[in-house]
């Protein structure tokens, strides 16, 4: 960078200190290549250079009142860029120290997303349950569909079907009991009368 362009940047910074937004934009854009070069020279990996550049831009913004227009601009900018690059490298070093390389654990860790096999199994169970519900007596079917499948509240189901809340509860209880019996599900302790 030539002495002329440094003087230009210093002038832009002085104008920015006075609140000139256009000069400030030009200044920050002018600083980008220099900051990136400093980050690379400090050993910041290429995939993190952009992050460091942005941290430096924010630092320039916060520190802009500390620039003295009678002094050269580049040492001021370079000091901030070098320090932020070193901070980024230290952060990366600390992060690498905390992370463990264990491919077996990585392979065995469930990824939370459903596998194709589990998806097919779930669909088959849902279809069987729907078929069993369809074969229930009308009152029980209605209660199971509205309270179990559609997730309606007792009040909503009672309002839409015209049945009382007690009748719906009794029908749901009977439907669950019948479905358990047909599908061979043994109720766990305390679950038998949980409707």
């Amino acid at each position, binding site marked *: 960078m030539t002495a002329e362009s440094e003087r230009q940047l210093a002038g832009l910074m002085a104008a*920015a*200190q*006075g*609140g*000139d*937004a*256009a000069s*400030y*934009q030009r200044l*920050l*854009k002018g600083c*980008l290549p220099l900051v990136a070069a400093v980050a690379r020279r400090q050993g910041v990996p290429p*995939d*993190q250079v*952009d*992050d460091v*550049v*942005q941290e430096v*831009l*924010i*630092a320039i*913004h*916060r*520190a*802009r*009142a*500390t*620039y*003295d*227009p009678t*002094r050269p601009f580049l*040492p*001021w*900018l*370079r*000091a*901030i860029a070098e*320090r932020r690059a070193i901070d980024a490298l230290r952060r990366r070093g600390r992060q690498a120290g905390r992370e463990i390389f264990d491919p077996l654990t990585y392979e065995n860790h469930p990824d939370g997303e459903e596998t194709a096999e589990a998806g097919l199994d779930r669909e088959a169970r849902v279809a069987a349950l729907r078929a069993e519900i369809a074969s229930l007596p009308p009152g029980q079917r209605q209660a199971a569909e509205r309270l179990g499948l559609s997730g309606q509240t007792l009040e909503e189901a009672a309002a839409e079907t015209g049945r009382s809340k007690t009748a719906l509860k009794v029908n749901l209880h009977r439907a669950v009991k019948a479905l358990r019996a047909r599908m061979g599900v043994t109720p766990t302790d305390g679950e038998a009368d949980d409707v």
Partner: protein
Amino acid sequence: MSKPLPHDRLIADLSRNLKPVRRVRPTRLVLLWLVVVALFADFFAIRADLHVMMAHLMLQPYMWLAAISSALTALLAVIAAFMTGMPGRSPRWALLPLPALAWWIFEGGMGFAHIWRLPAFQDASMLGAEYSFGFILLVSLPLSALLALLLRRTYPLRPTLTATLAGLAAAAAAATLLNFFHAYDGSLADLVAHAGSVVIVIAGNRLCARWLIR
């Protein structure tokens, strides 16, 4: 890692509603802090017996030399603290108070060596040492707080270094102000009290270093 914002967008965000800033002048901040220290000195001078103070200080050269060296340490440390808080200034500013600090430590050692030779040095009371310890800690507290507040106007790139220098400045200033009531007597207890309180003040300032970062 999250994808960074495009630089242009960040620049536009930073430039939006840009307000004029008041340039940080470290010399003014140093002077402001020194004025507050002078006000403390004025306040203590009203309450202290200045004749007794002068009589104590003049008993031995190390006593007034210790007072001068601690004052000089405070002055140079506060200058160094503000200069290290300005980006682009050499970090070598941190070395500025070291000669004065070495002189202060030397005078402390001279006092201790002098007292050691006296026949009744074992009889030195702990009272003065406890007073020194408490005074330096108590007076350092507001001086450190003010210094931290003023340093937040700067942008320390090495906050721990800046905070260490600020702690040294506050502790040295408090040790100097202590002379209004209790001149450094050179006893082992007083030496430990001085050194211990200065170390505690510096350590406290270092712990708060993160607060200096804006």
